């Protein structure tokens, strides 16, 4: 696993998985990201990010139950892996260190 950094959307998807815990399948993930960031996500982009993250080994998925309101289709649940968590932590650390000592400057810049 190369230590390439996470893309913006990948970052958001992984965070959504952490927040949602056991209830993380397609619909809640889309809603979580959309609801919190206020950004309208391309549905295809989110699904593609999910598959890519799985291919990178940063998350795992399993098929769940099918319900009538889903037209008899199964849910696919996603779960972040240990590698995924590490990647998130690394990204977080990188961001935090980049943010250090500059908040006040941004504040001032804004006023």
């Amino acid at each position: 696993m190369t230590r390439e950094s996470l893309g913006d959307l990948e970052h958001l998807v992984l965070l959504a998985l952490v927040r949602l815990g056991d209830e993380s399948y397609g619909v809640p993930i889309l809603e979580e990201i959309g609801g919190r960031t206020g950004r309208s996500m391309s549905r295809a982009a989110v699904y593609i990010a999910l598959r890519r993250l799985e291919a990178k080994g940063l998350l795992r998925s399993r098929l769940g139950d099918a319900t009538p309101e889903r037209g008899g289709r199964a849910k696919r649940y996603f779960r972040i892996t240990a590698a995924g968590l590490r990647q998130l932590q690394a990204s977080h650390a990188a961001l935090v260190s980049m943010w250090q000592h500059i908040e006040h400057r941004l504040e001032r810049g804004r006023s």
Partner: protein
Amino acid sequence: VTEPPRLARWLLERRLPPDDRGELVGDLTEQFHRQAARHGRARAARWFWRQVLGLIWGFAVSRGGAVSTAPQRMDGGSAGGGRMGGFVQDVRYAGRVLARNSSMTAVLIFTLALATGMTTAIFSVVYGVLLRPLPYPNPDRLMAIWEINTDGGRSRLADPNFDDFQAQNRSFQTMARYSSYVTSVVGGSEPTRSNVAAVSRDFLTVLGIQPVLGRGLTAGDARPGAAPIVLASYGYWQQYLDGARDLSALTLRMEDRVYAVVGVLPAGFHFPEGVDLWVPVELNPGNTSRTAHNAFAIGRLRDDVTAFKANADLSAIGRRIRQQSSDQNTYLLEDAAVVPLQESMTGRVRTPLLLLLAAVSCLLLVACANAANLLLSQATARHGELAIRNALGAGRARLLRQFLTEALLLSLLSAGAGVLVAIWGVDALLAMAPQNLPRLEDVGVNAPVLMFALGLALVLTAGLGVFTAVRSTSDRSRAALLERGRGQAGTQRNQTMGRRIVAAQVAVTFVLLVGAGLLGRSLLGVLSVDPGFRTDHIVAMDLSLPDAADEAARVRQATFFATLVDRLHAIPGVQQTGAASALPLSGGLPDGMFLLMSQEEAPKRFEDFDESLFSNKERTGIADFCVATSGYFRALGIPVIRGRLFDEHDGFGAPHVALISESLARTRWPNQDPLGRTIEFGNMDGDLHLLTIVGIVGDTHEGGLDLPPRPTVYVNLLQRPSGRVTAVMSAGADAGPVMAAARSVLHDLNPDIPLRFRTFSQVYAASLGSRTFTLAIVGVFAGSALLLAVAGIYGVMAYTVTRRTREIGVRMALGATPSDVLRMILGQGMATTIVGVGVGIAGALALTGTMASLLFGVTTTDPLTFAGVALLLATVAALACYVPARRAMRGNPVAALRSE
């Protein structure tokens, strides 16, 4: 229970990668139900559709994008390779391939765009003129009705014959007759010289045309003694009647009669072609002669009758008239024919237009051959790439698909550019089209034409794509490639193919050049005909006066013309002045049958004519009828062969005299002296005075340079005035001031007569119009084809030389001289050319027969043209081979060998 829209779901199932499908559809369905509960079914359905389309697009784009970094996906076998994704991926890949070889792509697109553009432009003319249905309701029911004369040709209808057709036929719902003429029209915002059609009552009903304002023709208008009315074209109404909504006060004066304007016909309606005003033909008494062919006729078929049955019906009536009529002469109809109106209108131009279409198709073939050759050479260069993709698992089908996609992209780009070429080309064609090309207003780049261009692009795609794909992905070819060693089996095969294509190109080009050559020789032939009159420095002025109704009016008219000619003659710079009823080369003269008659026999009234005389061959003759002044012959330089011209003694009251043309003297009075004989020709102008022949003048090619001179009788305008004349002035200097002076002279005499000026050179050029038009276009096509063929030969030979560098190096190292090499390469190129020329000769012999009717003074197998074209092609081919051959010859054998 609400369900997501079915079509959208179906699309989704179709387009999504199979392993993502389940949960994706599930997620969407779940959300759809929530949306439906919150916002209602309709809004949810719209939301669902947006999501589905977004998903499909998103996946398609991302799959294509993924490919660029992951070549193994090229085999299309990856789990995610849905059909949609595969196609987008192919398009992107094809785009990159084309962009990588940008110069080659540019050449390809340029060639194909030019060829498809020209083809589309020609097609748009062919479509507009020949194919597009006439702009009337149920146009397939509209028929033209013709008499068939004794020569088997079509002629117009005599009034009583039309009446019989109308009364006795069982095939037509309605029928109408019409004829058109040019006349002066006064009463609008300015006097005009307009085309007026005299039409019978049902004319508009036959065509299915309703006036946009006012009324059409009624039975009342056709009654004897009815008040004269006129219908105006939309354009005339707009331009000269100020588009007035209230027609009640509008009148127009023509030929000393005042017409009330009662209706305006729809914009764009001009039938017969060029007509602006329509009046009831019944205003004038019909001609009772069965041999005066004055009217065109059209009819609308009953729904249950075919054109074929209608033809049989009218033919029977026509033959019955022939049997029962008392005047059995050459001018009586032999038969009758029913022809679809569209065909009747465009029959004349069918051959030249189809010839142009054939020519442009040849050009397209040549261009395609070039494209095929370019693609083939490029395919050879891409062997490595293909081999790699093949090794990575791309099957032949996958590679075929890739090639087809490339061809599709190429064709669509070319077709797009081609449409631009076509738009420009149609403008150019319309600008140079001869005046006699009918229906030009129907020509344009419209939907059917665009469909044609698109269809053409698809055919090209299929052709070029399949061709290159099959050539470059065949197993043999691939096996050979994979060796990638010194063996050049695959390229050898492609080179052979390339040479075949070039030979075919040369063959098609040969056919085109021969076509252009034959047309060119015909034009030269026509130009070398001595017309029998001079064409330079002649100013012509068309004017029309009302027809003289009685003796007094005739005297006034004769005086008017005498004065006019004198006044025109006084204009500075004018050397000779005359006038005639029609100029040569501008539409022809009426023809008829005259009678040899002595003064004692001369009838006083038409009723006294002894009809039987017309069946006596000893007493009759046939000639064109022209009204002229003596100055007309001097101005046009028509020589007096014997006798004299009209002179001052031949005044209005004096005995009427006539001149005859040389060919009439020769054919009607062989070995006799026609001078002094008297003839009766009053059936042409209603004047029964006998004519004494006083002179013989030179022949003129009246009807056209490519037609033989017609026997002609000239009568004196000052004795037998005619309403519509053309005055001619021979002027050494500039035409402009002469025209201005002539205009003011006429304005002095009568300000209400509208004029049209032409120089005779214009008339002369116009008479050659369709010939030069066809030649120019075929010539351009042939020239373009020649250039493409030369490029093709050069391309293939240059490629051969590059490929054979090593072989040539070996040969030279082993002692071959540069001239051996030159001979070898030239020989190979010329062999290809000779094969092409051979096939071309065969093809041309087979095809030029179809253009026989367009040729003049040259046969369809003219050996000079064939030999000339063969020589031309061989020469340029040799030059095209020489350049690469010289490069091969100058090559350094050591360097060539080392490079391998």
